[in-house]
């Protein structure tokens, strides 16, 4: 559909205002006015109703405030109720500032977006001024030629009386208004070119990803390691602060960790016998889980040499390591728990000491497991002679 319009150009805003009033009084239909600034009083002269964007503003503001109210209560009282200084979960007064900010933000952004939407403003939109100078010091009054009875001559006469400097008739396509198709073709061409370029970049990246072999040995590059590397000395690194130049220092002789008991023995057979006389297994054999723990410890630390059943046929022994005696039938069936504890702790001949690997509890627990392999499967308390 095409529309015929009459465009009159004015130089003074006062002329424009009077012309608008006269045109309306004569009953002709004003399509639009184009102006370089918001002419004071023009909307009253045109008789346009106030825009409804203020309702959009109110709705967005209310929505923003309601959302922030709900969100703060939900996060602080429902999703993760965290006690902050004994304040109640629902600290409404403390939520007020953010409710307010949410309201202002939503109302402001919402209204402006709504303006862009209804006024069809968008980035990159191409516009030609309807008449030259309309962005500078000219005003254009657009009158729609509604039907055949429209008397262009009479209208022009009236406008000229109001100091219109130029009057022109134009035919407009449907709703194109002043938005010329000027940028259309050029725009789509450059867009297509951009698309090809991006496609090319994608192909090159994919090809490079497939063709360039990945070096698995190289560690990944670090970006902002976030304190992953401590400037402190690691236990193995050299350290100039100690006389021996090592970071890891042996504890002072005779130091005991908290909860640890003193073992006043040397790694000798005599002391092993002594330990057999003095030490008691602190773990009650009937306690739930203790024997199971013992089995796990045995499985992990002893089977390589002693074999799963304690017969001295572990894989290490089968490959030529001096085979340990059977724990099921050998001397150990007659040794008191304390003596086994000494052997496990300090080692004996080819049996390496386990103190560094196992806690005292685990050592006692594994003894219970050894006993369950033996017949009779009972602990041998201290004071029993082998």
């Amino acid at each position: 559909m095409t529309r015929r319009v009459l465009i009159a150009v004015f130089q003074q805003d006062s002329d424009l205002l009077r012309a608008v009033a006269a045109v309306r009084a004569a009953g002709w239909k004003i399509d639009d006015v184009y102006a370089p600034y918001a002419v004071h009083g023009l909307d009253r002269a045109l008789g346009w109703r106030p825009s409804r964007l203020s309702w959009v503003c109110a709705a967005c503001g209310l929505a923003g405030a309601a959302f922030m109210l709900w969100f703060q209560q939900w996060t602080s009282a429902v999703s993760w109720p965290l006690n902050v200084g004994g304040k109640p979960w629902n600290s409404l007064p403390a939520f007020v500032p953010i409710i307010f900010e949410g309201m202002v933000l939503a109302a402001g952004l919402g209204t402006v977006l709504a303006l862009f939407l209804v006024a069809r403003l968008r980035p990159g939109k191409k516009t030609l001024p309807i008449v030259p100078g309309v962005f500078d010091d000219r005003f254009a009054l657009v009158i729609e030629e509604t039907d055949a009875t429209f008397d262009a001559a009479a209208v022009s006469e009236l406008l000229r009386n109001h100091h219109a400097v130029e009057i022109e008739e134009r035919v407009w396509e449907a709703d194109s208004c002043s938005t010329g198709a000027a940028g259309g073709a050029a725009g789509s061409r450059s867009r297509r070119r951009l698309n090809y370029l991006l496609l090319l970049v994608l192909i090159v990246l994919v090809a490079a990803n497939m063709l360039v072999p990945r070096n698995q040995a190289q560690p990944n590059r670090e970006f902002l390691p976030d304190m992953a590397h401590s400037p402190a000395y690691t236990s193995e690194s050299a350290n100039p602060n100690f006389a021996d130049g090592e970071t890891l220092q042996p504890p002072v002789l005779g130091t005991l960790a908290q909860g640890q008991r003193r073992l006043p023995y040397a790694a000798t057979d005599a002391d092993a016998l002594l330990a057999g006389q003095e030490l008691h297994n602190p773990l009650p054999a009937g306690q739930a889980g203790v024997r199971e723990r013992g089995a796990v410890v045995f499985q992990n630390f002893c089977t390589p040499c002693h074999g799963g059943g304690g017969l001295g046929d572990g894989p290490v022994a089968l490959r030529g390591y001096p085979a340990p005696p059977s724990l099921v039938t050998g001397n150990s069936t007659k040794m008191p728990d304390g003596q086994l504890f000494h052997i496990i702790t300090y080692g004996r001949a080819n049996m390496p000491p386990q103190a560094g690997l196992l806690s005292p509890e685990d050592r006692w627990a594994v003894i219970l497991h050894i006993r369950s392999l033996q017949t009779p499967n009972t602990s041998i308390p201290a004071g029993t002679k082998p």
Partner: protein
Amino acid sequence: MAEARLASPPPLVAGDKSPADVTREICAPMERRPSGLWWSAFLVSASVLALGVAAVAYEISTGIGTWGLNRTVGWAFDITNFVFWIGIGHAGTLISAILLLFRQKWRTSVNRSAEAMTIFAVVCAGLFPLIHMGRPWMAYWVVPYPNYRGPLWINFRSALMWDVFAISTYLAISLVFWYVGLIPDLATASTRGKPGWRRRLLGFFSLGWDGSYRTWHRYELVYLLLAGLATPLVLSVHTVVSFDFATAVLPGWHTTVLPPYFVAGAIFSGMAMVLTLMLIARKVMHLEDYITHRHIDPMCKLTLLTGSMVGLAYLVEFFTALYSGNEYEQFGASNRLWGPYGWCYWLMIGCNVAAPQLLWFRWVRRRLPLVLVIVILVNVGMWFERFVIIVVSLHRDFLPSSWTMYVPTSVEIAILAGSFGLFFTCFLLFCRFLPMIAIGEVKGVLGHGQTDCAEVTIP
């Protein structure tokens, strides 16, 4: 009639300009090559900015230990600068929004640059808490988003969290306000000058503005609505900033006068900064006809008003300390005056309370170099005010064994200088590439002060 003409004030824009003159003269700095003065100013501020960037890079790669902070004074230059810049950012919205609501027509010549100044100041301010974090790439942790830590949400009961929301909302709304105001002028500028990337870019951001009155009609309403929203917002922002201090129990921070005191101080420092920039820009950019005594004079009066409010707030603080009967409060107050940082306090009083009193005299307000000196003093004084509030309150708290002094390191001073570099670099680029006076709005007030010929009777 003749008497009426004599009594009416001189026009807002001098030189009897037509709308076409306005377009041409305001767009001129964007179209001609920048002057030598502009280049030298730009080079100086860009180098200071580079210094600041280097200092920040060094600080981030090495750690916050490069600053002079200690266990007692955990906030010093960083937060001082933050509050200082945020305060400066308040004048733009005051001029654009509050004065719009009060129908002060003189705002039209200064609002655009004041808004730009606001945005740059808020950006400068926002950088300080960010670099104060030490690991700024974790800054997104201040945003409430669903996460795999629980989801563990941010603590909405914390004043610092309110700050995050207030500052980011303020930045967003100021940007939108500024941009919406720019759209018609971008359209105007994009039809002028040599064709090329500059015009294409201006055209892209003018959103296809065609001057249709259907759009103007809605636009005016939206602009008014934004002003209505920005007015309580601008008052809330510095209130929330003051909560950072007022909700703590430290003597010197823990008072109810802090929010109004901060807001007055913010507008005071902002007006001083706008005046500083305008007095320089009108000379450098040759805008003497657009920024006249009709603009400078009310701004001076606003500076005087808010400066006196700030002076009153200082008095109220002392009264509170005295009247509270609390020995810690009283010690805090006397430590401000006579403590080791006493000189900062007296400098602040001299610059913020005494100097602006000269603006009572019309003779002074007419002497622009004198005004420039006064407002620069105010800028200095307002920086020291924040330093006094933060460092002087912190350095001697309840526990005398932890009393200590704070001395800034060169890194901190370089970062402060760098923020000024950033501010002025942005402002100079703005003067060069965007219309620094609202063309459309100035055209609307050209007739103001003469006969109101636009009045017509509507049938």
